[in-house]
């Protein structure tokens, strides 16, 4: 049994994913050209979004896809439920969709008697563990294989064995599901079709077996043409995991005979972000997760410490832009190093937005004038008090720091001697 006294392993795991991205990017000579193209395509699309949404809907309807519109999370959930009711569906298999997390679809449906099975392995693991995903691409990266074994109630923690167990269990769910819900990676306006990318094949297995496919998308998922899709399919997997392309990139255009495809187009605060010139570019995001893998703060904090459904640099921008009072503090969880800007495949000016959001937060939230800050200022002012305070803090139990350090992170051990003590010993002997 391996011990968890190594608090740096998550950092190394995420950096490993960053290195794979780097290798993939280096193998494409025109990588920077692709980024410029992707950035331009997205910027153009979102600044002409009304036109493209109408074009997409018109073509999708022609293809026999049923299109719904939801202003907010509540409406999205109600529409999903109404479709399920129409089909008498009780059991749903779901492939990864951060939008459904944002709308809190699972608890909404479960409270109304529906059974929802998350089929992406990482999502299934966190579902069984009753946790939220900690990363938009690697939902269970914060868990060790021994913890996964425990979650699946298995004796072996071998990943191949555990994946086999999950495959068998989930197969039964796929075969007995009434409906399949997926997200949408890209919606192609001129084709009236949408794309779902996975490595596991869960989206395709689920949708090919169930009688109804419900696909949900944010308004910003549109791309103008099939030609544009090509650019994004070159960038997405390479940025996310370092693969040239995901195993399955499926283009849904028309429903199978005898089946239905329902597509729900969701706003839920996106047009508000669109209206703020400084933060519009955050809507270019293609949800690759590269910014999270490179962020020195994210790598050491993990996704659970961010209080928005999407964590990391992009989550901080989207959350804070959507609701500055509720999520604005996330903009401060950054060193503004700009590494996220460098890896973003669509060239979002993330660190500049984070800086601007800090200003917005200060305007929206008044300064805290509580006793703790007053005490802290006094202690920092007098060297003897400061020394005494650091000595006391050094020997406080871990429970004292738990809340501030983060409930999902291990508190490191305090050093036996402070830096100034060691310095004094070595220099002054």
């Amino acid at each position, binding site marked *: 049994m391996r011990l968890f006294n190594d608090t740096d392993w998550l950092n190394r795991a995420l950096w490993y994913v960053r290195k794979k991205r780097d290798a993939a990017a280096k193998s494409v000579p025109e990588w920077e050209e692709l980024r410029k193209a992707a950035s331009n395509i997205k910027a153009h699309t979102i600044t002409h979004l009304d036109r493209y949404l109408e074009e997409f809907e018109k073509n999708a309807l022609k293809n026999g896809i049923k299109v719904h519109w939801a202003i907010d999370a509540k409406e999205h959930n109600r529409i999903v439920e109404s479709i399920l009711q129409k089909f008498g569906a009780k059991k749903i298999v779901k492939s990864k969709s951060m939008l459904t997390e944002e709308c809190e679809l699972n608890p909404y449906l479960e409270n109304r008697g529906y059974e929802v099975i998350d089929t992406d392995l990482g999502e299934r693991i966190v579902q069984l563990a009753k946790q939220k995903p900690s990363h938009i691409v690697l939902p269970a990266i914060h868990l060790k294989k021994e913890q996964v074994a425990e979650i699946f109630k298995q004796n072996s923690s071998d990943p191949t064995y555990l994946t086999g167990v999950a495959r068998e269990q989930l197969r039964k769910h796929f075969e007995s599901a009434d409906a399949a819900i997926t997200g949408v990676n890209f919606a192609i306006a001129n084709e009236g079709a949408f794309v779902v990318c996975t490595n596991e094949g869960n989206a395709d297995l689920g949708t090919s077996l169930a009688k109804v496919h419900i696909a949900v998308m944010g308004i910003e998922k549109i791309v103008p043409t099939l030609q544009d899709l090509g650019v994004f399919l*070159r960038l997405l997997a390479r940025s996310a995991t370092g693969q040239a392309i995901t195993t399955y990139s499926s283009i849904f255009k028309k429903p199978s005979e005898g089946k239905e495809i329902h597509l729900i187009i969701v706003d839920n605060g996106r047009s508000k972000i669109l209206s703020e010139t400084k933060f519009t570019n955050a809507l270019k995001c293609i949800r690759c997760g590269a910014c999270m893998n490179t962020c020195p703060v994210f790598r050491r904090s993990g996704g659970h410490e961010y209080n928005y459904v999407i964590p990391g640099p992009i989550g901080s921008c989207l959350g804070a832009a959507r609701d500055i009072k509720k999520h604005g503090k996330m903009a401060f969880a950054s060193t503004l190093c700009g590494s996220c800007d460098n890896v973003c495949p669509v060239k979002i000016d993330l660190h500049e937005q984070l800086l601007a959001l800090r200003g917005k937060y200060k305007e929206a939230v008044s300064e805290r004038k509580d006793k703790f800050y007053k005490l802290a200022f006094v202690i920092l002012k007098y060297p003897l008090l400061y020394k005494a305070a650091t000595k006391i803090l050094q020997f406080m139990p871990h429970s004292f720091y738990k809340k501030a350090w983060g409930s999902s992170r291990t508190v490191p051990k305090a050093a036996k001697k402070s830096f100034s003590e060691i310095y004094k010993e070595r220099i002054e002997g």
Partner: protein
Amino acid sequence: MSRDKILKSVKKSISFRVEKNVNYSFTKFDNKLEKFIENFKLAGGETVESPEGFDVVLNAQFGVAENGACFINSVKERKLYTFYSSIVIKLDKNRIVNTMEEAMQIAKIDDFAMFLCGPSKTADIEQSLVIGAHGAKRVGIVLE
């Protein structure tokens, strides 16, 4: 109606316009077939002489050299792509394009199409790559 409310909100929100100015450039490989096979294998696929021993045979319209993906259009029964344990793809070795941009120039989608690249996989448990998550565990290709 929500549709009209959303479209109105979007239209009102747009504060600047960016014109489309894209250069769809792409690499051209010296040996597309070699690159294709290399990438197909990297994704866990295998080259085979015959379709014997596989559960499903699928015909690909073309392959993409830069990533080893096979474009398979409109298979009648969609569960063929992921339900069975082993799939073999038949591809004309002269129908390989360089990159995805080139692929999109010739891709024809009837009602459903897929870029399929190797067997199903996941690395969700401690980043360990495991082949055979939900889809096919074995994917072969016959180059004709």
